[in-house]
């Protein structure tokens, strides 16, 4: 059974076609959903892809959360549906209060565009259910605001509840506790700065992102079968 994944498109989003292509390569079916939509059209999973939603005006992700589609995304998340935010999508999910904390400017004020190693820290998320903890993946990062920050109480909670999904092996941006990706309490909402869709084919220099995308599709299939 083919999983249906909605890919949210804001003005300024620019990774939606890469995400669609990489998911379709794995047998998923995708649909681009514009930010003005009020429904996800019954999709089993949602990806909020990277880019510069609403120009990143005011703060990254700050205005995107007010788009009509985000109400549908929040409802999908509350119902336990898989939601993954990649890069700018991660920033949008934190601003929308679907994930805790915030992403601030990289230490050193450099825009980072390179492939880095990330360690999968837990299998208890929709993005890593098929990956053994400890697995190191080579994934591209491409961001100016990827420096994850949260208060100590939140950090303690993330650690205690096994919600740190990915950590940088060699922290490139100053992120607290080397955090590259986190999940919500139930593990169905995940945000990460690296781009798995850009590591989905050996031609791109790495296909390490496939295991993450496959986990998401598996979660989407499970959800559609449960429905």
């Amino acid at each position, binding site marked *: 059974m083919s999983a249906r994944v909605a890919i949210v498109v804001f003005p300024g989003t620019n990774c939606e076609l890469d995400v669609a292509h990489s998911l379709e390569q794995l047998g998923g079916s995708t649909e681009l959903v514009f930010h003005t939509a009020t429904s996800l059209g019954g999709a089993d999973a949602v990806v909020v892809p990277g880019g510069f939603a609403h120009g990143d005006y*005011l*703060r990254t992700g*700050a205005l995107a959360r*007010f788009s009509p589609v985000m109400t549908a995304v929040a409802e999908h998340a509350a119902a336990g549906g898989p939601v993954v935010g990649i890069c700018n999508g991660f920033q949008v999910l*934190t*601003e929308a209060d679907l994930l*805790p*904390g*915030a992403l*601030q*400017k*990289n*230490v*050193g*004020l450099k825009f980072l565009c390179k492939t880095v190693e990330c360690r999968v820290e837990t299998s208890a998320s929709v993005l890593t259910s098929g990956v053994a903890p400890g697995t190191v993946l080579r994934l591209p990062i491409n961001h100016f605001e990827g*420096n994850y*920050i*949260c*208060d100590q109480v939140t950090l303690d909670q993330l650690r205690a509840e096994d919600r740190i999904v990915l950590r940088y092996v060699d922290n490139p941006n*100053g992120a607290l506790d080397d955090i590259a990706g986190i999940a919500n309490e139930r593990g169905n909402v995940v945000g990460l700065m690296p781009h798995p869709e850009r590591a989905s084919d050996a031609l791109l220099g790495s296909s390490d992102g496939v295991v993450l995308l496959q986990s998401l599709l598996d979660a989407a299939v499970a959800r559609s079968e449960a429905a």
Partner: protein
Amino acid sequence: MRFEARVDVTHLPGIADPQGATVERALPALGYTNVSEVHIGKTIRLVIDAADEAAARAQVGEMCERLLANPVIEAYSIEITELAPT
């Protein structure tokens, strides 16, 4: 009544301010070796119609909490000035 509100958004204490830190490191290169505690934030100005200054301040505070600032990483201060009737 009409007021001008000026909102200063700054990093919360303890939150890294890489822009401020970088500028702080640059100033000594110009000979200013006695400068520290450089912080960079942003200023938002807006005009608001409200019953009185307290109402204007309360609404701007609410707008800060909901949009203008991110309370996870940012603090804000509000200045309200009454504008002459037009």
